[in-house]
């Protein structure tokens, strides 16, 4: 179908309504519950460990351009950098997408400034655009990690095959590694090579988890309600398929003509 039918428009409207409702609830100060995500609890531990060893922390924001994924990564970067700033630890940020370099640098600087530590480290030395080509980026980030002997390594965002190269280099440098990625292909490799891993939607939750921004928290809770709707549609669709066959009215409504 070229344009959505009324059912898809209604579906889209309902999902949007859920998200907006919860964002407004969060903005009005209502406390919205978010469950613990085990891997993300270890971020503080990793920063502490790097500080004890007197080594810097490396935070990879991933390969995403301007979009939700980048902003989630940046929320996490901000959290980690603030934690590191409190204990005077350097945070190294290799950047892949040139478009995102000034934004990453701004978040890095703001995080140090919020802890009253602006000027402690040089932003140009710590936040570097390496390359927008995967193999070149992976080689450069791995080399940088080994030369700096990082104590903690955070792999957040969207990655291709370079995630394993980064994780392997981090392991060789002796860093404690926490990964939180939403590219499913890379999760198995990060599970075996990182100390703690969160995946899939937990990445989006991480942004809300750390930042506690009402918009992010409200969006996450609103999405949960949308998932409940999808859940109901799946159960209903299965029941209708058993009763009336595959091409029942719900299937035709959602699939279009």
């Amino acid at each position, binding site marked *: *179908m070229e344009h*959505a039918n009324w059912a*898809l428009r209604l*579906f*889209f409207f309902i999902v949007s309504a859920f998200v907006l409702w919860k964002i407004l609830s969060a903005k009005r100060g209502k406390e*919205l*519950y*978010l*469950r613990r995500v085990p891997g993300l609890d270890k971020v503080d531990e990793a920063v502490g460990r790097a500080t004890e060893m007197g080594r810097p922390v490396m935070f990879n924001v991933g390969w995403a351009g*301007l*979009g939700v994924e980048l902003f989630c990564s940046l929320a996490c970067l901000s959290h980690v950098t603030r934690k590191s700033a409190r204990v005077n630890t350097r945070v190294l940020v290799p950047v892949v997408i040139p478009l995102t370099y*000034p*934004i990453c640098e*701004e978040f890095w600087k703001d995080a140090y400034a919020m802890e009253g530590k602006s000027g402690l480290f040089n932003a140009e030395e710590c936040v570097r655009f*390496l*390359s*927008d*080509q995967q*193999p*070149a980026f992976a*080689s*450069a980030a*791995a*080399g940088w990690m*080994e*030369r700096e002997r990082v104590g903690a390594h955070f792999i957040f965002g969207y990655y291709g*095959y370079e995630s*394993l190269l980064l994780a392997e280099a981090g392991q060789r440098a002796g860093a404690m590694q926490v990964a939180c990625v939403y590219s*499913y*292909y*890379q*999760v*198995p*490799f990060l*599970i*075996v090579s990182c100390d703690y891993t969160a*995946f*899939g*939607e*937990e990445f989006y*939750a991480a942004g809300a988890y750390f930042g506690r921004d009402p918009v992010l928290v409200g969006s*996450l*809770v609103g999405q*949960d309600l949308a*998932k409940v709707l*999808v*859940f109901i*549609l*799946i159960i209903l*669709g*299965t029941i*209708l*398929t*058993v009763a009336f*066959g*595959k091409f*029942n009215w719900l*299937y035709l409504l*959602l*699939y279009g003509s």
Partner: protein
Amino acid sequence: MNARRAILVGILVLVAVGIATLVLLERFPQYDPRRVQPESMKPLDRVGAWVGALCVIAIFSFIYRENPFYRTFEHILLGVSIGFGTALIIRQVLYEQWWEPMRLGIEAIVYGRSSPEHIWDACLIFSGFFGLLWYFQYSKKYLWLSRITIGVTAGAAAGLGIKRVILQDVPQITSTFKNIMIHPGLAPHLNEAARWAASAKSFLFLIIVCCVLYYFFFSFRRDTPLAKAPADMGRFFLMISFGAFFGNTFMTRVVILIDRVQFLLHDWLRVIHTW
């Protein structure tokens, strides 16, 4: 000289002898005992193969340890990729898709031979100004101007993404509508055992989808065992799927290694045919 150093020196000597032999065989091909004939490759291709082999070996040397050899080629790779990328953007995007159409459009308007297409092309000048707003990222006072560009770019991507997501991902919901009780009337070509197997497969599929979906609920409490069990099952099923991903991903990466080894053995050392 201790044993470790002796082994290292021995390996270096062997490598040097090997390289010297290969270079001499290039110079005196009449003594070359290898299967692939040297005449089949042009001289520049031969140089390219040597350079490529050097790069591959340099990057592979990282497996042993981070070393200056690796670092040198890492920086060369970075420089080449950035230079190539910059040239590509200037030539293929800025020049061909912005500058030329805009210039021709403005020229057509100025010389009075414009058409609606030329007017649209001339409007690209506004895209140029819009894109330049990005550089206000470096100004503390006018930073807000760059946020206009970011906002429009992000908003346009989100809006365009909605159509793609609905048309690409909503059919995934309908594909979960499976018949979990296949009766003879529905599949007369299947025997009873096959029908039970197909029904069980669909039922298992439904359970897995529901459990995995439940795992990714963040705002519902899981204090009771009844609430926790589907999430644990969902995680278990996810781990099984990650095992499948692991296998497939490993396969791709090994194939890439195989390709590099093929390059070293066929294009550089010329000891094998490709097939």
